[in-house]
């Protein structure tokens, strides 16, 4: 099958029908790719030929591969496909500077949330997208070096563990994928972005505010200086080194133009209030 998300087109092949069927359902709202030439190929293959049938085990493969990615059981085909798509983009894309971050947009201006896994950026972005913001992406911020604009990559959000119930209370039930229990990341369920985010997935936005959220800490807000921000973003980027000079220019421009603030928060309500206050203060 082929599928397109924002400026990226994938061709996905699988030794089994089930993962493709699950992907088809999850991406049913997304328009079919206009181009027949994909940017990346993703393959979900049996770890041994006989493991197509006996204790099926999926190995992630494609144009780029990492040796340490562990195989997954067939029941986790959707997770395997999503991980494989992320891997291809993370290692292979050279058109954009990729920052591991979630982003939302309002009035053409993008709010970017970056941080470690578990910082709550995905949950926050999903909540903001249900409160009037346009969802731009959950996995990567795609920064175009020539313009500095962020291009949407609105893939379904991988909600994990407690975040699943928190978002189930807010979003319509038909926007959720199947519940995947006991994955290597815990319980996992995909949330399909709002229709508006998919319809506008070719509309870029101007980066305006960068936040470093950190869930579970006492509420606090701290400006992140340009030097610290630069270093942290080189670590949050999957292709800064590969882009060379282009990456340096794109990142120095980004840290010069976009203020960065670290936000510690004990609960989502506090985080949303803080985000709204900081956004308003920008004027």
């Amino acid at each position, binding site marked *: 099958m082929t599928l397109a998300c924002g400026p990226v087109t994938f061709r996905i092949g699988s030794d089994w029908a089930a993962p493709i069927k699950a992907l088809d359902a999850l991406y049913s709202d997304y328009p079919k790719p206009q181009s027949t030439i994909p940017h990346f190929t993703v393959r979900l293959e049996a770890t041994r030929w006989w493991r197509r049938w006996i204790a099926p085990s999926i190995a992630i493969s494609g144009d780029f591969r990492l040796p340490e990615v562990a195989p997954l059981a067939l029941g986790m085909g959707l997770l395997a496909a999503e991980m494989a798509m992320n891997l291809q983009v993370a290692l292979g894309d050279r058109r954009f500077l990729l920052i591991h971050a979630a982003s939302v947009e309002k009035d053409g201006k993008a709010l970017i949330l970056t941080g470690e896994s578990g910082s709550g950026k995905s949950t926050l972005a999903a909540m903001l997208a249900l409160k009037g913001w346009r969802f731009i992406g959950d996995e990567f911020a795609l920064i175009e070096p020539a313009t500095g604009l962020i291009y949407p990559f609105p893939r379904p959000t991988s909600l994990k563990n407690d975040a699943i119930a928190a978002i189930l209370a807010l979003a319509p039930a038909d926007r959720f994928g199947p519940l995947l229990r006991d994955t290597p990341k815990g319980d996992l369920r995909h949330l399909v972005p709002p229709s508006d985010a998919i319809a506008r997935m070719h509309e870029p936005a101007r980066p305006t505010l960068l936040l470093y959220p950190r869930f579970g800490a006492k509420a606090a807000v701290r400006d992140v*200086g340009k030097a610290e921000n*630069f*270093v942290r973003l080189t670590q949050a980027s999957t292709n800064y080194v590969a882009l*060379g*000079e282009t990456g*340096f*220019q794109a990142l120095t421009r980004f840290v010069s133009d976009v203020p960065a603030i670290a936000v510690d928060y004990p609960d989502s309500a506090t985080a949303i209030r803080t985000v709204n206050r900081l956004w308003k203060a920008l004027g």
Partner: protein
Amino acid sequence: MMLRYAAPPPGACLRDEAEGLTLLYHRASGQTHILIEPAPHILDALADAPMTEGELLATLAAAFEVNQAEAVGERLAELVAAGLVSTS
């Protein structure tokens, strides 16, 4: 013979300043360096002409009021190791 130290030729690096730190992208190696004073001053001083360590110390003292011979020696060695300063 005394070693002479030289900075990369003009255009060999991209440079940006960030809160007292210098971000330097070295085109030849593709590496990004984050420099703290007096390293950027050393590169600036050497940009005019190759010089010995003694001449460099005198230039830094006159132009940037940098008078820490030991620190300059250490930074200079680091810049050589990083491939940003060459010797002849």
